[in-house]
């Protein structure tokens, strides 16, 4: 009985073309977009974009600073220097053609318009220079004999730090976005979940009535339907994840089985969220869908789909949200799988996800268990 209803449920899912279409299109579009826009950006590029800067030479200018800038421009590709007059520099800055102006006079001054990442980098260039010069002049004054050696050693550019890793697995900075994308894809199951619940309630649809009057326990039917939706959502999401992994070459790690398991629970949560929302009293279907999308969006936002670093922010201010937000848990589960060589944290996330699923199941059950309706 169950399996037949399940089979038909699957068939119906497969034929809901539009739903499937958007479900599959979603990771493809957004994934491709992420990848193309930011994918080839590694840490270095992220930190050091060539920053346009104006350079004005004044009296008593320091030759070393100009050399430093040229070096930074040509070798490190950190800045893009325009050598101009003072007036012109100000004009460029106002028009936002440059991010700052270096005035090279008896001392180095930096002029900027706003605070920001670029400004900070410019500031650190200036500081670095001044500190090095400061140190130099101190040494020159007190131990002139060693100046040669000092200068020689600066050029060496040591790697003072031996980079250890808590894991031998690698991860690039964009991964969080892709994880959040997978989370969102899982949670998209909420739409079919709503359909499922609405088609089940006899007071909401004729189909529901017909199934309620049948001689099979209606919860068997409902369960079969839900399982079918979860299966469909699971395959959609797996497809999306495969697209990310094989077409876009996103590093999702090698823990395939565990990732699949997580996607399965994620899809279950997605569908159950929909079922839960669909079971709430008597409200319009459009409101139900609105609620679904709203809840899903906020969950994904908090998990960092739209702004990276959101997870940490939440962790600092309201860590409890990260423990109960399914999107965060999915992101975190993927993250832990790829970072750590033990499964403790992954298992914790999975337990959290399972708990949410169970709560949603119980909640929905409590709402639909009523068997007779006051009106149809």
């Amino acid at each position: 009985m169950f399996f037949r209803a399940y089979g038909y449920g699957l068939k119906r899912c497969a034929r809901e073309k539009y739903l499937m279409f958007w479900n599959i299109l979603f990771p493809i579009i957004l994934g491709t977009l992420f990848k193309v826009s930011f994918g080839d950006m590694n840490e270095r590029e992220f930190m050091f974009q060539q920053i346009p800067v104006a350079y004005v030479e004044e009296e008593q200018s320091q030759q070393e600073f100009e050399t430093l800038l040229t070096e930074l421009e040509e070798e490190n590709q950190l800045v893009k220097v325009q050598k101009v007059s003072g007036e012109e520099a100000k004009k460029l800055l106002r028009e936002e053609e440059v991010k700052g102006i270096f005035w090279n006079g008896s001392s180095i001054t930096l002029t900027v318009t706003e605070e920001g990442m670029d400004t900070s980098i410019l500031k650190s260039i200036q500081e670095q220079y001044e500190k090095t010069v400061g140190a130099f002049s101190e040494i020159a004054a007190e131990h002139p004999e060693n100046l040669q050696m000092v200068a020689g050693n600066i050029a060496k550019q040591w790697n003072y730090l031996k980079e250890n890793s808590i894991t031998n697995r690698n991860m690039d900075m964009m991964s969080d976005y892709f994880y959040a994308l997978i989370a969102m894809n899982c949670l998209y199951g909420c739409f079919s979940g709503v359909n499922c619940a609405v088609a089940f309630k006899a007071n909401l649809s004729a189909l529901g009535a017909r199934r309620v009057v049948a001689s099979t326990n209606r919860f068997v039917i409902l369960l079969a339907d839900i399982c079918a939706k979860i299966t469909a959502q699971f395959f959609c999401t797996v497809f999306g994840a495969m697209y990310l992994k094989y077409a876009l070459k996103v590093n999702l790690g090698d823990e395939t089985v565990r990732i699949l398991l997580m996607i399965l629970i994620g899809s279950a949560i997605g569908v159950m969220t929909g079922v839960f929302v669909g079971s709430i009293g008597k409200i319009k279907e459009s409101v139900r869908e609105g609620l679904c999308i709203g809840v899903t969006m906020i969950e994904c936002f908090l998990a960092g789909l739209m702004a990276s670093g959101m997870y940490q922010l939440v962790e600092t201010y309201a860590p409890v949200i990260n423990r109960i937000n399914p999107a965060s848990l999915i992101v975190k589960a993927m993250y832990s799988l790829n970072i750590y060589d033990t499964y403790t944290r992954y298992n914790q996330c999975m337990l959290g996800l399972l708990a949410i699923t169970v709560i949603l199941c119980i909640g929905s059950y409590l709402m639909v268990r009523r068997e007779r309706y006051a009106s149809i």
Partner: protein
Amino acid sequence: MAEKVVEIENLVKRYKELVALDHLNLTVEKGEIFGLLGPNGSGKTTAISCILALLNFDKGSVKVFGEEIQPDSYRIKQQIGVVLQNVAVFEDLTVQENIDYFCGLYIKDKTERKKCVEEAITFAGLEDFRKFLPKKLSGGLLRRLNIACGIAHKPKLIILDEPTVAVDPQSRNRILEGIQKLNREGATIIYTSHYMEEVEQICSRIAILDKGRCVASGTKEELKAMIKTGEKIHMEVMELTPEQLEEIQSLQHVYQLTYDKGMLEIRCSGGKHNLVRILDYFQQKEISFGRVYTELPTLNDVFLEITGKELRDLAEG
């Protein structure tokens, strides 16, 4: 005495202020085709929903096959087939899949189910449309599919709630014949409709609901006997004077008279020799007349007379 399949006693159902069922009493006996008539909003669908344990009700009892029906009375539900007013099929499943799905909710055995599905398809004449999706079907076919889904598991009690709404005469005939066939095969049938001819044609017993109460019930003959009109006599007569009309009106058993464009319609209450008496009068007065024919009252007359002619509110139960 025949076995009672459905027994409704003193059923009361309120929707807030509106009383949908007001101490309704009904019994349906085994082997009947039981017609449930009533204007829109008279409580037919509500009554059916109560029989199916879909609705809770305020008072009274509903017994099906001798037992109080509960939402989990799966053993009883196994015996019931339902065709609801609104078409309830899956948009994304084909004709055959739909029937199989619903049949499968009742019958677990695979081979038996296969047989049932086949029979239901033949029954509804959907052989050529097995692989069609419901949205590709015409109105009549869709209704037939709706019915096939409800009866595929060979229930002993079949409830049909206006199964022929918006269906062409061919499809309707097929549906009605099918229902009679199911009845001959042993199923008890509860049938609601607005089409009096249908009910008159197939139902062995009829109940008329109005404002949530059963205002009349019995065989169609019994019902017809209940109303004033015994027969209607139509005559083609040229030129009748008002005095003559008055005289006809005063004849025994005549209670209503209309005369328009040479056609005289006389309604007589029950009684014998109405026609003879009227013809006697015409002969006596030497009024020439053309065609004469009489009509027995139809169910339509019964219905209108019992429930009144004013328009019903549109709130469907």
